């Protein structure tokens, strides 16, 4: 029941963010949706994800607010809007077709397939010595995935610093 209330709150926040004309208000509404996601993770008994979601949401909210304060609004002309609607509708239709096909195959909500996860839950503490089972999985059983994630973050930092660096930027005067 609590989960449904949070979900309705998040849907209202998302619709508000789309419909608002004021950019700062829309950013605040997006932040409310993110904090709702964090509380939903708490109700679903995933405190690790709740902490990460809360903290990353705050960081991205700060960056978005600073971006809204500094940049001008970009308005797309009417003809361009009309042309871009048709590909979007076609792609949404293709996506919905495959999503409906896939949704009939997955197990129902709250009763997952416990093939690999059952073994992790039974022998995670005895094999790794870590009391937090999430840490045991992401840093011992599935540590190669974590290495890949770290590589993604490293590439993102290098990309941002390479685009915005001061050395070698062409002076526009």
């Amino acid at each position: 029941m609590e989960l449904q209330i949070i979900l309705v709150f998040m849907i209202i926040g998302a619709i508000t963010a789309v419909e608002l004309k004021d950019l700062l208000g829309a950013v605040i509404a997006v932040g409310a949706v993110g904090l709702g996601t964090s509380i939903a993770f708490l109700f679903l008994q995933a405190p690790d994800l709740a902490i990460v979601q809360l903290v990353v949401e705050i960081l991205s909210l700060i960056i978005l607010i600073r971006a809204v304060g500094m940049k001008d609004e970009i308005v797309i002309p009417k003809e361009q809007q009309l042309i871009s609607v048709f590909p979007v509708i076609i792609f949404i239709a293709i996506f919905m077709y495959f999503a409906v096909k896939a949704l009939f195959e997955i197990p129902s909500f709250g009763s997952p397939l416990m093939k690999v996860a059952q073994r992790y839950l039974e022998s995670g503490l005895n094999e790794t010595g870590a009391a937090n089972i999430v840490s045991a999985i992401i840093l011992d059983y599935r540590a190669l995935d974590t290495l890949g994630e770290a590589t993604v973050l490293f590439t993102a930092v290098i990309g941002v610093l390479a685009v915005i660096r001061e050395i070698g930027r062409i002076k526009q005067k």
Partner: protein
Amino acid sequence: MIKKPEKGMTIIVKTITRYTVGLILLYGIYIVLHGHLTPGGGFAGGVIIALSFIHLMLAFGKETALKKMSVKLSGILESLGAIIFVTVAIIGLVVSGFLFFNFLTGQKPNINSFFNLFSAGIIPLCNIAICLKVGAGLFGIFVALVFFEMEGKND
């Protein structure tokens, strides 16, 4: 206030920041070091540590925070985190033939060490490496994205 980040905010914000920024930094370090015992871990703790420096930067202005943690130092710390993480992986490969083998505890960890701070072998080491990587990386991205001066904007 948004238009001029160099000046810093009002005295109310500065006073509150002076009291809270140390607690936020300490909470981030706690989350990282207890990552294998309680919810949290390297990623969440690293972002909290980066947020404490961002808090300092928003309240006191760019120069005060960059004096404590410069962009160059954050780049060095991020690379150090990546090197520690890969080194732990390769030591496991050399010792046993498997990447990320838990070379401190082996296949069967000591039962008496469960739920202690010093347990679980390489997992706290990896948490610290990821914390350095994520914290320094996100701080660098924040400084680059929010505080860079756009040239040719004023003409």
